[in-house]
């Protein structure tokens, strides 16, 4: 179910959406419960009516039936009595029962009782003059007695039928209530299903997408994209993730810039002394661990003070930049170049013996010596450099650089513009001293 497709639902707050759903559920379920309560009320009223009115009425009918049956029995006694006293006694009871309010209140029974009383009274009168009166009229009495018996049955059934109305109403109400309970349970199930579907579609799945996006969020990856969410809260989180990615990219750029400033020389863009020492030390340790050849070098521009004095410091800076670029162009990608200070440069040549490094350094020296550096005012200058090399396959970086510096001094002493190797024996001697 896509809530976004529902007009007016897009962008609704998740809390409000679920509150709306809960309100709908409460209202609908409340209505069902109210209907059930009304049914229960009807059942209570029907049972109350049954208990307070119908049952007493049934009892009244049963009493009437019993009195009618007694009327018939006393009539039989009138016919079967052996003495006038017992016959008269039975006749009095007949009159009493026929006069009883319970009989008189039921018109059919009252009429039949009155007819019975008159018949028996008449037979009693006739028996005063006719000794066979009871025999003569016995057949007629039997017909009357049969009518009384039928009336007894009718009254009993009428009484019992009184309960049928109330019981049918109770049964109908309970039957209806059963359907309502089933409907209410179905409604609860439907709402729960709808709730779970909406929960999964609009909360769980977006949260899972957000979790995946956050776990892979990095400056190397493009900013994650999401389908528009129907819930404002989810949409806000998705937008926040995009903003977070942009912030990460910005921070990475700043970090790179800061690293550039911290590690490189601002003028020549070569590695500064501190960073060169870190990188060179790590490479030296690696080479010594695997017993690979490695060579360090120190270079110094010849007569650079005179250049500064003659052409100015700006020209000196241009020369430094030009020679730094020349070094980058001359040396290999794997070789390390650092501005060691002023017009001094340091090198480290991995996987390179002293002889091989000498070839590289000599190439640089030759190219530098023949490199015409143009100044802004159109003049051209050439600067030579002296280079000292030292094998660094044993000993520390500082020691190797010191020996390279000694070799550089030796190159200066020999007349500048040359490459001098530090003697290997001196290196071993120094290493043995350590």
């Amino acid at each position: 179910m896509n809530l976004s497709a529902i007009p007016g639902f897009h962008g609704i707050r998740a809390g409000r959406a679920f509150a709306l759903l809960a309100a709908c559920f409460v209202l609908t379920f409340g209505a069902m419960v109210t209907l059930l309560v009304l049914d229960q009320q009807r059942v209570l009223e029907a049972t109350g009516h049954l208990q307070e009115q119908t049952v007493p009425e049934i009892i009244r009918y049963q009493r009437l039936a019993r009195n009618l049956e007694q009327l018939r029995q006393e009539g039989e006694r009138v016919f079967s009595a052996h003495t006038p006293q017992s016959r008269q006694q039975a006749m009095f009871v007949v009159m009493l029962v026929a006069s009883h309010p319970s009989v008189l209140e039921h018109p059919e029974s009252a009429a039949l009782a009155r007819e019975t009383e008159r018949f028996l009274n008449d037979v009693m009168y006739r028996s005063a003059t006719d000794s066979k009166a009871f025999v003569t009229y016995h057949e007629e009495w039997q017909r009357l007695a049969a009518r009384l018996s039928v009336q007894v049955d009718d009254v009993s059934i009428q009484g019992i039928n009184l309960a049928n109305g109330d019981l049918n109403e109770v049964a109908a109400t309970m039957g209806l209530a059963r359907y309502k309970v089933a409907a209410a349970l179905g409604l609860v199930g439907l709402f729960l299903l709808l709730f779970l579907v909406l929960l999964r579609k609009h909360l769980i799945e977006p949260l899972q997408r957000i979790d995946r996006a956050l776990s892979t969020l990095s400056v190397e990856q493009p900013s994650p994209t999401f389908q528009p969410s129907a819930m404002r809260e989810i949409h806000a989180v998705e937008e926040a993730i995009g903003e977070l990615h942009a912030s990460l990219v910005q921070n990475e750029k700043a970090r790179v810039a800061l690293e550039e400033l911290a590690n490189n020389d601002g003028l020549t863009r070569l590695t500064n002394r501190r960073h060169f020492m870190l990188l060179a030390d790590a490479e030296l340790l690696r080479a010594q661990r695997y017993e690979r050849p490695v060579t360090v070098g120190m270079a110094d521009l010849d007569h650079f003070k005179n250049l500064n004095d003659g052409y100015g410091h700006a020209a000196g800076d241009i020369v430094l930049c030009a020679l730094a670029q020349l070094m980058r162009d001359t040396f290999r990608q794997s070789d390390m170049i650092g501005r060691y200070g002023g017009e001094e440069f340091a090198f480290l040549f991995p996987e390179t013996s002293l002889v091989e490094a000498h070839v590289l350094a000599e190439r640089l020296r030759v190219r530098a010596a023949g490199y015409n550096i143009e100044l802004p005012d159109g003049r051209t200058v050439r600067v030579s450099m002296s280079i000292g090399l030292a094998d660094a396959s044993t000993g520390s970086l500082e020691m190797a650089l010191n020996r390279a510096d000694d070799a550089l001094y030796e190159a200066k002493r020999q007349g500048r513009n040359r490459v001098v190797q530090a003697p290997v024996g001196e290196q071993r001697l120094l290493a043995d001293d350590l």
Partner: protein
Amino acid sequence: MRFLLLVLLLCGARWVVAQPNELHVALWVAEAKTARPGSDGERQNGGLYQFNAQLAREICRRMKARCVMENVLFGEILPGVEARLFDLGFGNYLRTPEREKRVAFSESIWNSSSRLLGRVANKRRLSARFGPDVALDGLRDVRLGGIAESRQMAYLESIAGARGLTLSKARTMAEAIALLRDGEVDYCLLPMLTAYELLRHETPGIFEFSGPPLLDHGLGGSVHIALAKDSEALRLAVNQAILAMRADGTYHRLLHQNFPFSLE
């Protein structure tokens, strides 16, 4: 010694707690000679009177009350209850608006109707004037009797002037029968059950009922026990006892002990 005193104290407290409420109960007797305190009206009358006495005792037992029974004439019961001389009046009272102004009534204890009672010889004589079935509605210029203070007598008094009826009042049922036997009245208008109570001892063929049984004008309906107007708690207790007796079958056992038919 302390233990003995404690036992005596507890026994005394129990006696005080167990002392039931005392109720004065008026029972209607059929004959004036039995209408005195302590007389054995129940034994002498039997039937309806024995039923009333047994009913009164059972109600008292269920209310946990100590009842003092007193046999009195019908006409003395209602004024006695009204004057609070009696707490309960077993006079088999039909419930009428006039009586309800004077006393309160319990639940119904049975149902009754009224009917004319007369001598067989009188009926033959009057049948020539009023037809074969002599009925109260058709009677004119005859002598009628009834029990003083009864609903039947009250009704007769209300119609006597218009119909030229001559009325005689009896204090008891026995006196009413005597009025009929002596020929001082042609008919008595009596409650059926009460009439039966006396007629069952009479020689058959002398008396007989006449006309239809009567329910209207307060002459028939439910019969109640009379109580003082403001004794609501007592009335509720009596009603509760009657309902309980009906529910557990005690009421019907009393009926069958005393009557060969149902009063309800």
